[in-house]
């Protein structure tokens, strides 16, 4: 490649596109060489994608999945952030609750499916509950570690200027911990997007996860299965990029300097 004449700007896009194109080519020729008539080629998937768009249910499925994530993730943030801040501020409380959190945290939300169905029945609320569980623990733990790693000179400065403890939390501890809290929220959002697909395969009859399992069950439409999988990947990437753009906000950018 003649990379000296051109700046690296085009290379930033060229190599990723080339890698993706290569992957599609390998996929295509694997399908051609093996002569399979179950596994779809990229072109079949593209046709399947167009079919989904034309049927019009695709937007409903995307909307349902995104809505479930928004509700479950939102509930996890609304409850997890205050809990995490509290545990970070009061190490004694953290010592008490931490073992329980550490035991609950590694349990995959998928393992909770039976419990979710007992509690909420088969339906939207069970799926949202699973997403909530997946997102809750990373958010709590990020808040705890964010708060406990706030440099003591910030807290001392706050006290020096006569702040009460609530003012100290709002004006010093929270903004100082915010970059770490955002990292926790971003991880949690990624988990929520993984969990929604699994939850929709079992607990509900709409959404992208349901689209995957339904396409397989009703007529072994593997072109639609893979089209849905690709959509899940692309939407996950968009959610992550959207969240990452928050890291560039001026009042938190200082916490992400290594990336800029």
């Amino acid at each position, binding site marked *: 490649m003649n990379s000296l004449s051109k700046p690296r700007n085009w290379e930033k896009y060229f190599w990723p596109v080339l890698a993706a194109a290569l992957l599609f080519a390998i996929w295509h020729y694997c399908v051609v060489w093996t002569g399979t008539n179950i596994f779809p080629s990229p072109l079949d998937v593209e046709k399947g994608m167009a079919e989904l768009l034309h049927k019009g249910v695709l937007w409903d499925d995307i909307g349902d999945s995104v809505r479930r994530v928004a509700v479950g993730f939102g509930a996890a943030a609304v409850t997890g952030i205050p809990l995490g801040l509290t545990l970070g501020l009061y190490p004694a409380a953290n010592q008490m609750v931490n073992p329980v959190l550490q035991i609950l945290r590694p349990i995959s939300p998928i393992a909770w499916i039976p419990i979710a169905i007992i509690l909420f029945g088969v339906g939207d609320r069970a799926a949202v509950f699973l997403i909530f569980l997946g997102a809750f623990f990373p958010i709590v733990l990020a808040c705890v570690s964010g708060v406990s790693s706030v*440099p003591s*000179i*910030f807290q*001392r*400065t706050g*006290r*020096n*200027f*006569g702040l009460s403890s609530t003012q100290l939390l709002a*004006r*010093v501890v929270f*903004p*100082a911990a*915010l970059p770490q809290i955002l990292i926790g929220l971003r991880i949690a959002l990624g988990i929520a997007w993984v969990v929604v697909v699994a939850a929709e395969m079992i607990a509900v009859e709409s959404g992208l996860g349901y689209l995957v399992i339904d396409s397989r069950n009703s007529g072994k439409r593997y072109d639609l299965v893979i089209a849905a999988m690709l959509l899940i990947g692309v939407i996950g990437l968009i959610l992550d990029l959207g969240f990452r753009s928050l890291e560039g906000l*001026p*009042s*938190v*950018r*200082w*916490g992400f*300097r290594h990336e800029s």
Partner: protein
Amino acid sequence: MSLTNAANTPAVAAMKLRAEQLCVAFERDSKSVSVLEDITFDISDGEFICIVGRSGCGKSTLLNVLAGFLAPTSGSVIIDGEPVHGPDPRRILVFQEHGVFPWLTVEGNIGFGLSKLPRAEREHRVAHYVQMIGLQGFERTYPSDLSGGMKQRLQVARALAVNPDILYLDEAFGALDSITRLAMRKELLRIWQTERRTIIFVTHDIDEAVQLADRVVVLSSNPARIEDILTIDIRRPRNISSPHYLELRDKLLEQIGQAYTV
């Protein structure tokens, strides 16, 4: 009563701060280790005091006690006739580095301690101190885009904005390069001469102490006791190659236990 430099402070200055037989001991491996022992001195209103000593001798501990962040094991700190029981916005501690809030702009940092003031007055004061530290045009800039010297000026301005009687500086210029440090000293002296606060400045830099202080408190090590309180009777602006400057500097070096040859 303290000796003051007649050229720089009012002839009859009121006493501002008295440290009375301060002792601080820490528990380490279930043994009590004495860090500060029998520290007694007076500081007049508007005086510029430097505290010097070897690194680790307990200078910062002493400053934390004076600022109310650390309760002494025995003894007391009296400011304006009242014993110190904790930190207070009337006396602000300035740290070595990373003391400014990175999530606030220059304006936000200077205005940090002014939230109780009406908006117009707050903006007026912020503008005043932005100008004083020469950061006009950087009002909306975040600390990560400022140089080390600018950040330290900002920290000083944030402290001055709440109108404190006493400014404590804990090796405030220690992390800066030597040229910036020299500029910062000039700046601090200029601010001190216009604003007339009492300044207590902890440093391990002998030159810094002789250039800045009215009096220098010399601490010994293990535990820290007052070795000497040296009056720097040189008129300002100080000529830092005059024989008297060198004499005082050499005396300090000797007291700290360092020969003045390398």
